[in-house]
């Protein structure tokens, strides 16, 4: 009896305030989409960092067969030269700041190129022999890049020293700023969502004042009086959350996976639908928390006085 009563009340309430219910749904949808977007952007940053940032920080490009640089006039790097460079990196003053050195031979560079873009122009036109060997150096403290550049920059067989962070930092900076922007919008929108849920509950309470007055007068319990209103907020907010999850899922599925992955940017490890599902429970929790807080703030005032 009571359960059916509550359910009827909830749906009557939602029907009576359709415009408000829709506003709540839309605003929660958008705000949680931003929360989700911020989270996914950070996941993407994490994936990129996992991919490269941790692994490689400084690339020491060694002289290839053909080079425009004056330092490589003497011809391609020899094994002895390479060993000397590695020795400098791993011992002495640099030994303390270098964590690890990964040599990448021409052949490995060639394979990486093929993996990234097998049908590309360069893969068609070049051979392994045209590639450039390099040493990838991981530093204990990435800030020490300058020391490495100074120490090995002038050694025989080194073409040039390149801090890969430069490239990634720009990208990460962009992604981080995007995260911040999304988070800021999320906060603003969540505020709006909260105000809206509050007003929806208030409106609903006002439009059913007759009913609640009678309920109080005949001795209905406080729970039974307030529950329908709370549930209205909860249902609207949760609907918004579910829609935002669907939106994010579709975006990741069609924009990121289908489009980015098949584009020529496909050598990057992208977020996938799994990451959306990992974020989903949090979005639903936020929606529930939001409506719970709004209910608590509002209900006391509008159903008892």
């Amino acid at each position: 009896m009571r359960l059916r009563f509550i359910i009827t009340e909830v749906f009557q309430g939602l029907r009576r305030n359709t415009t408000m219910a829709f506003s709540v749904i839309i605003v929660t949808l958008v705000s949680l989409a931003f929360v989700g977007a911020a989270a996914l952007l950070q996941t993407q940053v994490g994936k990129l960092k996992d991919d490269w940032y941790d692994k490689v920080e400084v690339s020491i490009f060694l002289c290839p067969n053909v080079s425009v640089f004056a330092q490589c006039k003497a011809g391609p790097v020899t094994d002895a030269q390479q060993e000397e460079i590695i020795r400098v990196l791993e011992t002495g003053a640099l030994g303390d700041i270098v964590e690890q050195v990964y040599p990448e031979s021409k052949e490995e560079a060639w394979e990486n190129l093929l993996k990234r873009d097998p049908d590309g122009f360069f893969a068609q036109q070049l051979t392994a022999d045209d590639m450039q060997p390099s040493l990838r150096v991981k530093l204990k403290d990435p800030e020490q890049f300058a020391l490495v550049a100074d120490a090995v920059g002038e050694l025989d067989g080194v073409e040039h020293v390149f801090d890969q962070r430069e490239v990634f930092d720009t990208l990460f900076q962009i992604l981080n700023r995007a995260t911040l922007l999304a988070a800021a919008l999320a906060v603003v929108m969540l505020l709006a969502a909260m105000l809206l849920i509050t007003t929806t509950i208030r409106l609903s309470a006002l439009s059913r004042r007759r009913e609640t007055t009678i309920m109080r007068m005949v001795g209905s319990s406080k729970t039974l009086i307030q529950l329908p209103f709370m549930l209205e907020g909860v249902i609207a907010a949760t609907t918004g959350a579910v829609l935002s999850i669907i939106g994010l899922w579709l975006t990741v599925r069609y924009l990121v996976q289908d489009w980015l992955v098949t584009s020529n940017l496909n050598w990057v490890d992208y977020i996938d639908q799994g990451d959306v599902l990992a974020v989903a429970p949090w979005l639903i929790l936020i929606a529930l928390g939001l409506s719970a807080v709004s209910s608590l703030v509002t209900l006391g005032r509008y159903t008892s006085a």
Partner: protein
Amino acid sequence: MINFNEVSKVYTRGARPALDEVTVAIERGDFVFLVGASGSGKSTFLKLVLREERPTSGRIHVAGRDLGRLASWRVPLLRREIGAVFQDFRLLPNKNVFQNVAFALQVIGKNRRYIDSSVPEILDLVGLGGKEKRLPHELSGGEQQRVAIARAFVNRPPILLCDEPTGNLDPGTSVGIMKLLDRINRTGTTVLMATHDDLIVDQMRKRVIELREGRVVRDQLQGVYGLEPA
């Protein structure tokens, strides 16, 4: 049944109290008229009984409960022992007669079987048998008030509070409502009724408590509306 012990109620600090040291005892089965000019505190008295308002000072006992000590989650239990009828009927306009009365039972968790048996019974008692399906706006004022009384009384509470139940009714209709309340009173229910209606009070000759500016100025068995004729 209802005991007021030096009860005062001040709504606005500094203003004249709405009730001023009121001490009144109403026994089980009494029929009491609460009379007095507008603003004399009649509605305030009833609200205190229902614990819609709390007194500024003094103690109130209703149906064996000390309202000052009643935990707020127990207020619904108190209200199930009190029926309340108002001047403006307060029916739900989109529910029919049966549903209006049933609503009061649904929201205190009665099951469908109980509702289906007790609502027709009470509608017969108030003389609305056969009009279950009508909507409030299809009823006359007197009939609407009967629905309100049925709703207040369907749970057979020991106390019935009425705040000017005939204020919106014409004299003929009012007499019918009073007969109904009298009948309910005879079943052992305590009836406390605030009213302006001198004619009715004079006809019924029940106990009359008169308030003036929040003070009890008269408490008379078989009284009339005013001592000086209106």
